[in-house]
Each structure stands twice: as C-alpha cells, then as structure tokens.
C-alpha cells in the first residue's frame, strides 16, 4: 500500500539569523531536494522525519512509518555486530545482510566495517523496512562508483513510497520524479522532469553546462546525463 504523501503548511523553523520556510506536498515517488550548503536541507529532512519540530506550521501525514538516513551513518549504530545491528531493525535480518553484501561478515564488529560497508548496511535496513516515508540525507557520501549504482538501484525499487533524496552529488542518481530546491531557507517545488531542469535556479555546473549548449537531459538519472553529454560531444 502506498502512502498518500506528506504535506507541509506554513512551516517555519528559526535558528539564529537563519529561517527555514516550507510549504508543499510530497506524493509517492522519488523526490530530489537540492540547495547549497547551509540552505536548510538537513533541517527540513529532520522536520519531515519527525526528528525535529517546527516553530510554526502544520505537517499532514497519514502514513504510518517514516525513517531518515542520517549523514553520519555511525549515529545509527546501536549494537556491536553486523548480525545484531541488522536484527535491531526488526525486519528480515538475513535479507538486510544479503542486500548490504555483508554475508560472511555477520559476526564482524560494526566499527571494523569500512565507511562504505556501514552505509550499505544502514541503507539496506532502511530500504528493507517497509517504511512509507524514506528520507536519505547524502546517501552517496563516501561511497565509490559501484556502491553508488547499488544505492540508486535500491532506491528505484521503492518509487511507490515517498522517497526524499538529499544530495549534492547528481552524477549517480536514480530516475527522479520531482525536483525541489531550498534557497536561503525557502522551499520551492521546481517541478517534474525534464521541464523542471530549465527552472532550476541554482542548478549545478553540469546542468548549466548542458543547458548552455542547448541540450536538456531527459531527466537526472545517470543514464539521462550520460546521453545528454554524448549529444554534446558528437
């Protein structure tokens, strides 16, 4: 069963001189939340996940279970071994370990894993858990190219849920449905693909480069971007 989505009405959250303002509805699908460093992406993710409370405004959420992958994955860890950590998520422990590619390492000390392995384990647990709102804050950070592709494939299997991806790295994304932008604390729904790309206010250099050459990618997946780049090189 897919969830009806989560909507934000008049959300305001202040931190010193910084103010976050957000309105909008996140329907089931894969959303990309972009914005410069310090624009409030993590704070908004925490409010959507229910980890933080806004100062003002209403969050309407009719689903049942929500989860957020934190930037610093080691903050998720609550046990000692891989087996215990996978079991702590109260789902199919074996499937979590298999998806994370950690079969044979069940008894390994969780802090003896590499950065990439630990991130794969927590991601596999989150994406196996049947959550209907999934917020992933920089899921690609610290992962090599192969692991990034693994993450994107796993995410694509969950497009019937609400998946909100926060990422600066746009080179290994799955197929994105809706693009959102935070600029100086204000949330804007930029739109769906590919039309949204031309309205992206602070588009990253690669997108600006493509548009400057008169080429609009079909979307933001790795394949879409590679095809667009090839059209320039021809």
């Amino acid at each position, binding site marked *: 069963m897919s969830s009806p989505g989560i909507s934000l009405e008049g959300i305001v959250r202040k931190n010193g001189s910084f103010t976050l303002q957000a309105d909008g509805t996140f329907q089931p699908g894969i959303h990309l939340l972009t914005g410069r460093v310090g624009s409030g992406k993590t704070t908004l993710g925490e409010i959507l996940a229910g980890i933080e409370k806004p100062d003002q405004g209403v969050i309407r959420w009719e689903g049942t279970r929500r989860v957020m992958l934190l930037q610093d994955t080691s903050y998720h860890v609550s046990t000692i071994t891989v087996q215990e950590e996978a079991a702590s998520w109260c789902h199919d422990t074996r499937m979590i370990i298999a998806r994370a590619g950690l079969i044979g390492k069940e008894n390994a000390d969780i802090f003896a894993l590499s950065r990439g392995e630990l991130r794969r384990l927590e991601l596999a647990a989150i994406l196996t858990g049947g959550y209907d709102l999934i917020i992933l804050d*920089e899921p690609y950070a610290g992962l090599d190219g192969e692991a990034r592709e693994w993450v994107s494939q796993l995410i694509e299997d969950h497009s019937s849920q609400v998946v909100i991806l926060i990422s*600066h790295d746009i*080179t290994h994304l799955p197929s994105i449905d809706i693009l959102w932008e935070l600029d100086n604390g204000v949330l804007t729904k930029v739109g769906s693909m590919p039309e949204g790309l031309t309205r992206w206010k602070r588009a990253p250099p690669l997108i600006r480069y493509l548009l400057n050459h008169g080429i609009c990618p079909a979307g933001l997946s790795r394949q879409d971007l590679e095809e667009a780049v090839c059209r320039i090189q021809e």
Partner: protein
Amino acid sequence: MIKIHAVRSGILNISSCAIKPGVCGITGPNGSGKTTFLKLLAGIFPPGTGTIHIDGKNPADCVIGWVGEYPDRNILFTRVFDELASHLRFSKKNCTDIEKIVCVCARNLGISHLLDRAVHGLSGGELVLIACGAAMIAQPDLLILDETDSHLDDEFCSHLDNIIQKSGIRYVLFSSHRPEHLAHADKIITLENGEMQDHTSSQNTGNQGGHCHLNDPGFWKTVIAETSGRDTL
C-alpha cells in the same frame, strides 16, 4: 618533493612514488587504502617497511593540517575564534599576534562574521571552513583533506579550492570519489587494493568517448571552465 619508497603498510604496497608541490587528488574504491595512505603521509603512524620523506624530512617532523569527512568531530572549542586560535595558543604565541593572525585567517575564509559565534548550530559548510581555517592557520607543510568533499556542493568545493590555492601551502593532498572534484588537482593518484594504478596529470586524461565522460576529470575541467565565474556564495 614528497618521496615514497618501498612502502608496505596494512593493505598498502607502493614501490615508488614522487609528488611535486601543488594539489594532489587520491581516489579509488572503498577500502583501497586511501585513508591509510594519507595517515602515513601525515605521520600518524610510520610505515611497516619503506620510507616516506617530505622535502627530505620525516612526516612526523613536519607540520601537518588534517580535515576529515565530519569536521565537527575534530572541533575542540565551543567558540569559533577559540577553535581557529587553538594551534597558535598551543604553540604559545602571544595574545596580540594570535588575534591578528586569527582575524586575517577568518577574513581569507570569509567567516569574520562568525568569530564570536558558538560552533554548535553552524551549518555543515561553515564547520568545514572553520576546520580548514584551524588546519591552515598552522601554515602546514602538508594539508590533508580526507573526503571532506562528501557533503559539499560543487560551488563550495571550488570556493574552498580557491582559498587553499591562495594560502600558499606547499603540498595539498585530498581524497575523493568524485571526478568533478578531482578535476581541481594537478595530479591524481588512483589506488586499488593498496596499489597505485596510474599516475597521471589531470590535464592529459582527455575524453574517452562512450559512457566514460562522467568519470573523466578531464571532462569536468571543461564543465568547470565553462560555468565558473557567475558563482557566488
């Protein structure tokens, strides 16, 4: 010149490597030995066998600046000014000089307005600038950034790159998974299973055709050159 000779340590196995002054990027899959390589160069531990010399000196006898993936984990003090001043205070400089040096450092980084702020509650990007400032204020022989770019956007990385280039630090080594950031390096070292794969200048990687553009730092150099200039922080 940084000279590495017959080094074996953990997974690392490097017969010979020389790094000229400038910016050098280290890349390679998870678990290929990047952080071990950087720790050896920082003198955090000596190699099992072999030698490493930075301009003829042992790494442990050099001044090293280190910034990691989560800079706030290494921050010691609650106020930004105190964090930037920490190296100078630990080396017993006098207070008037410390204040002057900290103010210049903050101005160069564009964080003068943060000096009296508490570190807690600052944004991720601001924390990175503070961690870089605290490392650079020591005027290190070698500045190391270990996957510091993991949570940074492209413009922010370019901004940081400009600051580091202007700092005049002789050797800068950074590890990264992202070809768009490796494009900023004068030289790129690729590690795989602890061994060095190639050893090229990022200028001559060229376009490789097909599906390789997005992995090619040479392609990203073109993107950066054509889109920089209008970026503001």
